[in-house]
C-alpha cells in the first residue's frame, strides 16, 4: 500500500510540475509584455516627473537627467492659472459634457424608438453604425467638406435659403463647437447600437404588459427602460468621463495644427511628435496630475450612479 501511495504522490507531483510549467508557458509572454509596456513605462513616467533634463553643465555637453524634486508639479500647478492651459482643460472637459449630456441622452432616446418597432429600424442601425468603422481621416474630411465655404453642402443649402454662412472653422470658439458637433454626428450611432442592444435584452413580458395597459411612451421610458438599462448607461457615462483624457484625433483631424482647439491628450501627443526632451517631465507631470485629480471624481460618480437604481442582470 505504501508503495502505491508513493507512486501516486510522485505522479501527482509530476502532474503538478507539468501543470505549473504549462501555466507559466501560457502566461509568460503576456506578463512580460505587461511588465515592459505598462509597468516600466508607468514607473519611468512617475520617476521622470521628479527629474529634469540637463543638456549643458559648466560649458560641457552632459545630456543627463538630474533630480528636480517637485519642481515639475509646481510648474504644472502654476500653469493651471495660464489662459492656454485653462483652454486645453476646458476643451477637454467639453468632450465629457457633450458625450454625457448631449450624445448619451440622444442615444438613449433614439435606441428606445428603434426598439419600438420603428419602420426601417434595421436599416437605421446599419447606417448609424457606419461611422464606427470608417477611418477617422475620411470621416473628418467628409465632415469638413460639408461646411466648406466654397463647396460645402451646408453652405450651399443655407445660400438657397438666403442665409449668410458663418465662419464655421475660422475663429475660436466656433471651431471648437464644430469639433463637438462632429463628435455627436460621428459618435451617436455607436452609442445607439450599444444601448439598443441593452434594451433588446430586457424581458419582453414587461413591454407586453405595458402595451396592454396603454402606458404612454414617456412613462414606459422613464419607469421601465431607464432603470433596467441603468448599468449600461453607467458604463457609457464613465467612458464619456474618460474622454477628457482620451480625445485628440478629432481636433487634430478637423483643425490640424490649431493651438486653440488642443486637448490634454493632443498636447501630450504633440510633445512626443516634437520629441522635446526638456519639456518631457513637465508634460508627464501634467498628465499624471490631472489623472490623479480626476480619479476620485470618477470613482465617486461610479459609486453614486450605481446607487441610483438596483443592479439588474439581463
Amino acid at each position: 500500500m505504501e508503495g502505491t501511495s508513493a507512486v501516486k504522490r510522485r505522479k501527482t507531483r509530476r502532474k503538478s510540475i507539468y501543470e505549473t510549467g504549462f501555466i507559466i508557458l501560457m502566461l509568460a509572454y503576456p506578463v512580460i509584455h505587461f511588465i515592459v509596456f505598462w509597468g516600466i513605462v508607468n514607473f519611468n513616467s512617475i520617476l521622470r516627473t521628479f527629474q529634469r533634463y540637463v543638456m549643458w553643465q559648466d560649458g560641457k555637453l552632459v545630456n543627463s537627467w538630474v533630480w528636480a524634486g517637485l519642481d515639475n508639479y509646481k510648474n504644472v500647478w502654476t500653469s493651471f492659472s495660464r489662459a492656454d492651459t485653462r483652454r486645453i482643460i476646458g476643451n477637454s472637459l467639453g468632450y465629457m459634457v457633450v458625450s454625457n449630456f448631449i450624445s448619451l441622452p440622444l442615444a438613449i432616446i433614439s435606441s428606445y424608438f428603434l426598439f419600438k418597432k420603428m419602420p426601417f429600424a434595421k436599416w437605421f442601425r446599419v447606417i448609424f453604425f457606419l461611422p464606427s468603422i470608417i477611418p477617422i481621416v475620411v470621416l473628418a474630411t467628409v465632415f469638413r467638406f460639408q461646411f466648406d465655404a466654397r463647396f460645402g453642402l451646408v453652405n450651399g443649402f443655407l445660400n438657397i435659403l438666403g442665409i449668410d454662412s458663418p465662419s464655421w472653422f475660422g475663429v475660436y470658439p466656433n471651431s471648437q463647437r464644430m469639433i463637438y458637433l462632429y463628435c455627436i454626428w460621428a459618435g451617436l450611432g455607436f452609442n445607439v447600437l450599444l444601448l439598443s442592444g441593452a434594451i433588446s435584452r430586457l424581458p419582453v413580458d414587461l413591454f407586453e404588459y405595458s402595451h396592454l395597459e396603454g402606458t404612454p411612451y414617456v412613462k414606459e421610458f422613464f419607469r421601465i427602460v431607464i432603470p433596467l438599462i441603468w448599468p449600461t448607461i453607467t458604463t457609457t457615462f464613465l467612458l464619456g468621463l474618460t474622454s477628457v483624457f482620451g480625445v485628440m484625433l478629432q481636433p487634430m483631424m478637423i483643425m490640424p495644427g490649431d493651438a486653440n482647439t488642443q486637448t490634454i491628450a493632443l498636447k501630450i501627443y504633440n510633445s512626443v511628435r516634437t520629441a522635446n526632451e526638456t519639456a518631457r517631465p513637465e508634460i508627464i507631470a501634467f498628465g499624471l496630475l490631472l489623472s490623479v485629480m480626476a480619479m476620485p471624481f470618477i470613482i465617486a460618480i461610479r459609486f453614486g450612479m450605481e446607487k441610483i437604481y438596483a443592479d439588474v442582470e439581463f
Partner: protein
Amino acid sequence: MKNRYKIGKQKIIRSTPQKIAMGIVFALFLIYSVTLVFPFVWMFVNSFKSPAEFFGGNIWGFPKTLRIANYSEIFVGLPVGGADGAVIETTVVGKLFGATHKYSIFEMFIVSIALTLACTMSNIFFSATSSYVVAKYRFFGRQFIYSLAIFLMIVPIAGTLPEQYALMRWLGLEDSFFGVFLMFSAGFGMNFFLMYGFFKNISTTYAEAARVDGAGHIMVFFKIMLPLALPVIVSLSVIYAIGIWNDYTTPSIYMKSMPPLAYGLFLIRETLTGKGAYTQTFAAMMIALVPILAVFVAFSNTIMENTIAGGLKG
C-alpha cells in the same frame, strides 16, 4: 432573441400621441441618416471629375467626363510630404514594388494588411492563452492578475505616452513595423475579458475526456479549447482588425517612414488639399473605404451583434 420585444407579426397599434412621436423621431432619423450617407455619395460622384470641372462650378452635378486617372494616379504613386514637410524615402515595401521617392495607396494597403493581420493574430492568440489559464486553472496570483486587468481597463492614466516613446527609442523600435506589432501583441486588454467570459462558462467535459485519453494541457488547449472558441475568436478578430486598420495614433508615432493607410491617408489629404487637388483627395478617400466596407458587408451581422452583446455593463 426570445426576449426581444415582439408581438408576433400582428399590427402594432399606437395611440395618436405615440404616432406623432414616432413620426417626428422617424423624420429626425431620416435626416441624420442622410447626413451620414449623402456626403459620401457626393464625394464619390465628385471623385470622377477633373479639377477644372470641379472648380469650374460643377459641384452638384454628375461628371461630364469620367476622370479615372484620379484613382489610378493615387493608386500607383504620389509624392507625399512627411510629417515635417520632407519627402518620405521609400521603404522595404516600396523597394519591393520598385518605388523610388513616392508613396502609393497600394503600398499603404500592403503595410496595412500586414500590420492588421500580424497585430490581430498575436493579440487574439495571447489574449486566448492568458484568459484560458486565468479562467480554468487555480494558481497563486490568479486573482491578482484578474484584478489588475480590471484596474487597467477602468483607470485612465494620461501622460505616459512620452515615456512609452522613450522606451521604444531605447529599444530601437521608434520607427518600425516590428515595434508596433510588439506593442499590440498584449495579452491583457478588452479581448482578455471577452475570452475570459467565454472560457469561464465553457464546459470542461471534452477537455476531461481528452485528459483521460492521455492528452496533455497543451494538446487540450490547441486541439479542444481553441476550436471550441473559434466563433468567439473570429468575432473578436474582425472587430479588433477594424480597430487596427483604422488606428491612426500608433503608426503616426512609431511608423512614420512606413505609413499604413489610416495614417498615410492623412498625409495624402494634407498634400493634395494643399495643392487644391480636391477631386483626387475624394478618390483617395473612396479607395480607403472599399476594404472596410467589404469587410462590413461580409461580417455585418457578426460585427453588430458582438458590439450589441459586447457586455458594456457596469
